[in-house]
């Protein structure tokens, strides 16, 4: 059973990864900025097609081979796990290598052919963007945090009646498979972990409000509508994760306090529902919305404009993946190669956030 779920997840992520170029802005390919005059270049389309085919055929074939190997030879569980992990890393590595090759090819092409030469670089700002931006207010994220803290206090208030072994990990069958000695700290471990995740999501939601809008000079109205929608759905996705994580972990917390609530079928059902909801939401976000909202159709027509292009900010993107811009006050920016967000590593706030995040994770795991 586990092997099927694992293979299905691998195929799912690999297929999404393969079709990634389809969900991205046409003005960016393999992390390279492409001027409007070049977006229909056949060579770019060919590179993207090659990437998709390679991952789709090669990657999924490998996963299927792995699945049949595991089913037919029935290897030891640890062998299956290690081979599965090796496969996962191999797939990741291959897609990165393909990305890197195409990234370099495109940069070379762009430089030798001087794409966009003779066009004036323009930066567009919509003065009313923030007024139109409809992100969920932070209170939506704070209420689940309060709920978690409430459960935490409740657990501590029931300290004497708690079992002497506190579950810290649950297996795929819904039963706890790792325990820690009862102490104030081990009782607090789960709510603390949840608090870190909740705090992170709250931080993302507020950082998104401050993130710079990328309005395209030749498609002002279209890109504005798409960005507004993309940010709105990003905020909703964060909220969905916030709610589902709070509920699932709250349920686990309650089963610790009231052991009679434990029912492995409920636990399995809750976990499965959680995974399916998150996967469904991510799929909707990726396929229906797309990076920066590119998959959303906009009916507002833009006046066509020649001789201008967006600002080429390749120099701020290391390998097209990592954004470093000391001037830009945005903490979060839209990814170039991927659907979602990344951080501005030229901003000291991003580093503070990372140090706090990693520090608190290390701290909680040391406690246990």
């Amino acid at each position, binding site marked *: 059973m586990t092997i099927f779920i694992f293979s299905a997840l691998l195929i799912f992520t690999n297929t999404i990864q393969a079709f990634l170029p389809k969900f991205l802005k046409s003005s960016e390919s393999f992390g390279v900025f492409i001027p409007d005059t070049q977006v229909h270049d056949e060579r770019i389309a060919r590179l993207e097609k090659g990437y998709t085919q390679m991952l789709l055929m090669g990657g999924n074939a490998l996963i299927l081979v792995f699945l049949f190997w595991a089913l037919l030879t029935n290897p030891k569980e640890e062998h299956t796990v290690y081979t599965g992990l090796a496969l996962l890393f191999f797939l990741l590595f291959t897609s990165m290598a393909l990305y890197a090759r195409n990234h370099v090819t495109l940069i070379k092409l762009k430089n030798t052919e001087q794409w966009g030469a003779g066009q004036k670089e323009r*930066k*567009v700002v*919509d*003065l009313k963007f923030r007024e139109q931006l409809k992100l969920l207010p932070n209170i939506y994220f704070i209420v689940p945090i309060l709920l978690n803290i409430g459960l935490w206090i409740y657990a501590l208030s029931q300290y004497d009646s708690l079992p002497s072994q506190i579950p810290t990990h649950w297996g795929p069958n819904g039963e706890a498979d790792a325990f820690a000695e009862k102490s104030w700290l081990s009782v607090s471990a789960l709510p603390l972990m949840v608090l870190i995740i909740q705090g992170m999501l709250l931080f993302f939601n507020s950082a998104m409000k401050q993130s710079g809008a990328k*309005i395209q000079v030749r498609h002002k109205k279209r890109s504005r509508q798409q960005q507004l929608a993309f940010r709105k759905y990003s905020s909703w996705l964060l909220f969905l994760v916030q709610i589902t994580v709070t509920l699932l972990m709250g349920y686990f917390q309650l089963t610790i306090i009231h052991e009679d609530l434990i029912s492995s079928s409920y636990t399995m059902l809750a976990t499965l529902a959680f995974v399916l909801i998150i996967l469904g939401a991510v799929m909707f976000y990726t396929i229906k919305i797309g990076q920066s909202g590119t998959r959303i159709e906009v009916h507002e027509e833009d006046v066509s404009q020649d001789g201008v292009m967006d*600002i080429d900010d390749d120099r701020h993107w290391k390998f097209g993946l990592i954004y470093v811009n000391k001037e830009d006050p945005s903490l979060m920016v839209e990814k170039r190669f991927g659907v979602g967000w990344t951080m501005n590593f030229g901003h000291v706030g991003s580093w503070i956030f990372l140090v706090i995040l990693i520090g608190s994770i290390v701290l909680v795991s040391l406690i246990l």
Partner: protein
Amino acid sequence: MFIEIEADSTVPIYLQLAHQIIEGVAKGDLKRGDSLPSVRAFAADLGMNMHTVNKAYHYLEEKEFIEIVSKKGVFIHERSVRAATVSDTDRLKKELRPIIGEALCFSLSMEDLQALLTDIVRDIKEGPT
């Protein structure tokens, strides 16, 4: 309302920002009391230093086109569209003078200048033709 900044223009970026906001006011796209983005949000949208936006805002504030209310935000000034005061006219005269000097060097006649002005006014009010 969209603002467009040219990256490698000889006009400094803060002036480009200020000029376009003034034109927005002249055209009526920006009305008195309308809010403008915060310095941080504006700079993020530009992907540029907050200092640039600050400079533009102070330039506009000095000319009474915008009002910066601390903790509340930035707004188009109540007096943004106004009957020119003596000092407004004096400043315009002074700032136009070198341009007119240049025009005279290019041997533009009074009529040429008039036509140029009419053209610019139409362009600001109705957008480029």
